[in-house]
């Protein structure tokens, strides 16, 4: 083979690499094509042209002509190094977890310059500089920009896409799993994943809202619970079926239904609910609530990112891993660490009359946890809700967020521990444990007896918002008290469960009770809230004292047991939902703290 061909090919490899330089910052549409071309061409060139050429070249000059060329051997070494580092980058990637990735990247980058220098030196030394190499150079330089202009057309089309997003824009979360398996697993059993069609309480409430207020009203719920459905024009949240029965998705571990759907339909079937892409493509968020975020799905995609074939997907992952900077930038933004990012959904108001229904973010804003002046005291949402817990204490998880990636001191876990231990616990004990631990960090009890009065203090020590917050009308936090006299007879009790499972009347509940315009409790229709019937929630860092009268004739010493109980949904709500979902279990009562004390 003529050496001129080899020269062309070497420059093809070199220039397709050079165009990926950050310094040049070429348009993304061109970048992704050049990146893929660089790898495909290089592998093909090395296998079919370079390897045979090097073999015959050495045979001819070293073994037959006995030429001793030092820089020839050096060139071979360099070529091998650059090739090996290239293979490493492609097959294993520069994910940040090992030093080799970074080393290979730099070796591949700088080595190629040295290589090309030696290559020109090597070729020119043997013969008079000929016009060929200059022609090749000129050709390549003029050819590449010409080529690079064509894909720009498609880029502008992409920008002109205003009619709405299609299923392929909502990249399925399963695609993220291939590199972020641990995070995927955490998310797949979390309440963020199961916030739409697989959450029985939500499905019932959305349907009820549609029935009571008209089908359009569902959009209010779906804005936060099911943004992909809203964006692709679905009018309501759908649930999975197993033949003629409701699927038991609420008990499924690791998003089995989603993963089966993905295997069968790929990205063609839109993933409903809060998927990876929903949160990780939010570009703007403000603290207004009611889904006040902007999702921008027109992002920089590597070549073959939307490929439906296995080979294409495999190749795409190699491309991302070999140079992941753009990938990182397009899926993670500084905004994601701020509380107002979460506020876009965790504050909720009625869309027509503006009455505030959930104000978790506003509660946080006013709490001591919001302290931007003193960084040591400032705690944002993710400092509690996305930090790993161990032995009832925050214990930042040391590990990686990408398989084989950089070891971080505090991996932001995607368990999304809040208060719903129940639904997450149906899928994974680890999730339940994380949530229960977080709940236990939130409050403290103290007990005293004074003038025949039992005084129980409850302090919100750990939550940067009211206790309870969120859908506080559907959360039960209450005191269970029992007092026994000297003879062991119960002389006072409060906060027991009745036979039907509801908390007995007169118990000291910490919650918000909504009433309608006639001051009647709204029941399930919480959006009809107009008047606040009572609000006994405990603001952040505040202490509430509940006092109980004890009979004056009681015989001391008194044996007093006080428990702070929590239940995620009241019995009457679960009972209602179970009429539609007969397989739903009963949420258990969780004991957050217990004090047993004797008073003389």
């Amino acid at each position, binding site marked *: 083979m003529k050496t001129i061909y080899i020269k062309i090919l070497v420059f093809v490899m070199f220039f397709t690499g050079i165009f990926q330089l950050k310094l040049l910052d070429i348009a993304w549409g061109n970048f992704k094509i050049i990146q893929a071309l660089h790898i495909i061409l290089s592998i093909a060139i090395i296998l079919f042209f370079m390897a045979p050429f090097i073999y015959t070249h050495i045979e001819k000059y070293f073994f037959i002509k006995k030429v001793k060329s030092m820089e020839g051997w050096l060139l071979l070494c360099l070529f091998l190094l650059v090739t090996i580092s290239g293979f490493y980058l492609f097959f294993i990637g520069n994910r940040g977890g090992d030093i080799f990735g970074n080393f290979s990247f730099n070796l591949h980058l700088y080595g190629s310059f040295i290589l090309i220098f030696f290559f020109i030196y090597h070729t020119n030394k043997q013969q008079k500089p000929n016009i060929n190499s200059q022609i090749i150079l000129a050709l390549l330089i003029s050819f590449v920009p010409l080529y690079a202009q064509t894909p720009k057309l498609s880029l502008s089309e992409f920008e002109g896409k205003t009619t709405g997003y299609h299923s392929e824009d909502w990249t399925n979360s399963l695609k993220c799993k291939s590199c972020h398996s641990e995070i995927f697993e955490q998310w797949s059993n979390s309440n963020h994943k199961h916030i739409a069609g697989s959450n029985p309480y939500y499905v*019932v409430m959305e349907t009820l809202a549609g029935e009571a207020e008209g089908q359009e009203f569902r959009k209010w719920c779906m804005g936060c619970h099911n943004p992909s459905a809203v964006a692709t024009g679905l*009018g309501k949240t759908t649930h999975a079926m197993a033949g003629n029965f409701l699927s038991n998705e609420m008990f499924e571990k690791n998003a089995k239904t989603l993963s089966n759907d993905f295997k069968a339909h790929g990205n063609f079937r839109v993933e409903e609910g809060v998927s990876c892409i929903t949160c990780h493509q939010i570009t703007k968020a403000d603290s207004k609530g009611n889904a006040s975020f902007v999702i921008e799905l027109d992002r920089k995609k590597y070549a073959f990112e939307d490929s439906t074939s296995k080979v294409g997907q495999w190749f795409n992952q190699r491309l991302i891993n070999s140079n992941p900077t753009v990938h990182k930038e397009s899926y993670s933004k500084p905004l994601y660490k701020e509380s107002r990012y979460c506020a876009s959904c965790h504050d909720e108001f009625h869309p027509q009359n503006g009455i505030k229904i959930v104000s978790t973010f506003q509660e946080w804003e006013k709490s001591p946890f919001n302290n931007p002046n003193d960084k040591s005291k400032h705690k944002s949402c993710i400092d509690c809700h996305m930090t790993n817990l161990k032995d009832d204490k925050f214990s930042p998880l040391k590990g990686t967020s990408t398989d084989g990636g950089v070891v971080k001191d505090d991996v932001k876990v995607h368990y999304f521990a809040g208060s719903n231990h129940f639904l997450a616990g149906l899928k994974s004990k680890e999730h339940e444990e994380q949530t229960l631990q977080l709940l236990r960090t939130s409050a403290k009890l103290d007990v005293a007896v004074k003038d025949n009065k039992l005084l129980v203090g409850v302090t919100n020590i750990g939550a940067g918002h009211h206790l309870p917050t969120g859908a506080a009308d559907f959360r039960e936090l209450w005191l269970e008290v029992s007092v026994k006299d000297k003879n062991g007879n119960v002389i006072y009790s409060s906060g027991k469960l009745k036979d039907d499972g509801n908390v007995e009347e007169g118990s000291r509940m910490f919650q918000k009770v909504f009433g309608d315009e006639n001051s009647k409790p709204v029941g399930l229709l919480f959006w009809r809230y107009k008047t606040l019937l009572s609000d006994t929630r405990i603001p952040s860092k505040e202490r509430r004292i509940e006092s109980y009268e004890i009979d004056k004739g009681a015989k001391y010493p008194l044996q007093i047991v006080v428990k702070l109980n929590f239940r995620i949904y009241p019995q009457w709500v679960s009972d209602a939902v179970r009429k539609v979902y007969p397989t739903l279990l009963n949420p258990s009562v969780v004991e957050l703290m217990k004090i047993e004390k004797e008073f003389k």
Partner: protein
Amino acid sequence: MKKLLFYALIIAIVVISIVLTISFFTPPKKIPEYSDEKLRELALERGLRAAPSSFDELKKLVDDNSNPMTPQKIALGFELFFDTNLSKNKKTSCASCHSFDKDIKNRGALLDTLTKNDKEVNNCAACHLQDQSGVDRFTFSQGDNFVAHPYLLNTQTILNVGFAKHFSWSGEVSSIKEQSANSLQDHYKMNLSPKEVETRIKENPKYAQKFEEVFKEGVTFENVTKAIEVYVKTLVTRGSYDIFLEGNNSAMSHEAKRGLANFINFGCKGCHNDISFGGQSIQRFPLREFAQVYDLKPNFEVIPTPKRLDSEFPFENSGGYLGKNNSHLFRVPILRNVTKTSPYFHNGAVPKIREAVDVMAKHQLGRHLTLEQIDEIVAFLRTLEGDIVDYKIKEYR
């Protein structure tokens, strides 16, 4: 020799590249951008007319001299339609499978079910009554005693069938009267003989007088089916598409209008035609079978013959139903309200509307639609969705 090989390789590469780039040079069929007036004209030309908005118009379209629609007869049919006594176990009425609330204006059925303890729970209907879809939303229908139909057939909607010419999945039934007689007698539906139906009706004194008023012959099996027929003919829905046809350009979104243009130009309207968007003819499905799947696993035969999987349909062939004469002939389903009646096809094997559109385009039209085209067509189909029209027939007399 070496040279020959080299040139052969070069030529092969060139040929393959040309083949691969052909698709870039042949632009896809371009659907022109129509003005609203033009689009309306095209739709009307092809018979995709609006559903009637008044009882008079409805009567002009569907009334039949052999069984005229009178308010009394409709009222009688209405009672019969919701009467669970017309099934062997006294639990199934027509409305059990063709479900919607007896009071079409009711906006509290789910809340009632959830909060009242005495309510008998039919858990799917609790949520889906408000859909007013005229189907049970099951994959396959379950009749008397909740026994599944052996063919695992999916319930078809009963809404807008007044405009159809063929009924049932095979399309062999040619009137609603005939179909309701079949349903009353079918072992897997209501499971009563004509004699038993008459006895059940006569047991109920409230019917005796009404039958006397409406029919000369009084209570007979045929008169029962006649009364049901006239009531079913009044079950019509109107959506934003109808409002668009009547002149309101803003009733349909731009995407939905593109979808309508696609619907007309790709040829969907060839079979899904007339007011009901279907039910007018019997057609072969699948027409193009290019999605054959073969099982290539070694099967230890003397001559290994690859087994053809799912050879009958481009989806799971559960139930094994093959249409009229076992020859893949099916009644073209009605597309009004189709977005409310998932799952799709005769055995309910396709759960999502986008997938159903894709299957239809591939196997009936031989087209690979782009995601955009699919979404546009679905947006158009959503404009065919609507609630049951209240023709205020009681005041009509």
